[in-house]
């Protein structure tokens, strides 16, 4: 466990309310977004996040500290969200989605010549230079908005892998998909998001 996490955990275990408030501020929105992977219904997602916080509070003393704090909380949330989705009869079949999204996705943003070279040179993003922080902020917003428009299985893998930094095995177990599914979904999603960022990054 990182030193920062250990310090936060010690404060939480000591009943430090300010530490808990900080944790809630930092992670509540992310948990809601994660819950949305399994639960379309906003009220259900909010309830599951609430249940997750309660489990965090009561589990603080039994948490081994092996996984990073955020990962531990994410794991609790994923379990609860899945259980809730099954109970509501709304469990998303990511394996079926993965196959469907791979089969009929006509999106091919990259252009190549017949000999396999890029049709157009790949230009660095003007908006990402250190001098242009505003551009950077705009790119953050553009990519965050594009994430929400991805097909559901692609959104799920990007959220778990790239945003939350989960390892591949845990993602496959959580979403009940194969490693091959994961790679294809991740590739399509990242390709798509890069294309969106590219348009914003080189906008005049």
């Amino acid at each position, binding site marked *: 466990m990182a030193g920062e996490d250990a310090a936060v955990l010690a404060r939480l275990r000591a009943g430090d309310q300010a530490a808990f408030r900080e944790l809630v501020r930092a992670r509540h929105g992310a948990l809601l977004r994660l819950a949305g992977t399994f639960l379309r219904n906003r009220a259900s997602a909010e309830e599951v996040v609430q249940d997750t916080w*309660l489990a965090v509070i009561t589990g603080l*003393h039994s948490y081994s500290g092996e996984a990073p704090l955020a990962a531990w909380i994410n794991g609790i949330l994923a379990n609860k969200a899945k259980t809730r989705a099954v109970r509501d009869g709304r469990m998303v079949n990511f394996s079926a989605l993965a196959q469907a999204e791979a089969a009929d996705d006509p999106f091919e943003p990259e252009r190549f010549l017949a000999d396999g070279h890029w049709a157009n040179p790949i*230009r660095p993003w003007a908006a990402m230079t250190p001098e242009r922080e505003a551009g950077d902020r705009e790119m953050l917003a553009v*990519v965050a908005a594009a994430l929400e428009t991805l097909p559901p299985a692609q959104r799920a893998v990007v959220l778990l892998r790239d945003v939350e930094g989960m390892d591949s095995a845990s993602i496959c177990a959580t979403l009940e998909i194969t490693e091959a599914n994961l790679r294809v979904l991740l590739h399509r999603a990242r390709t798509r998001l890069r294309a969106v960022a590219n348009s914003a*990054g080189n906008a005049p």
Partner: protein
Amino acid sequence: MLTCEQVAAQATDYMEATAPLPRRLGIWAHLRICPNCREYLRQLAQTIGLLQRSPTPPPDTATEDALVALFAAQPKRD
């Protein structure tokens, strides 16, 4: 030698280190001589960086206060 199109198609496997070693070496060799593919992979990495920094809204005050109250009501162990 791999083409740019092949490199782009395997960019995620390369970045996730899931491509077999000979493939990774082939991509690596291509990247050494191809500025376009280098920039393409850099942009994929930058996109992931943007995702990691994408902000989420904090909870509203009432929700936050209710959760902190729940935490405060928990009996202390120490």
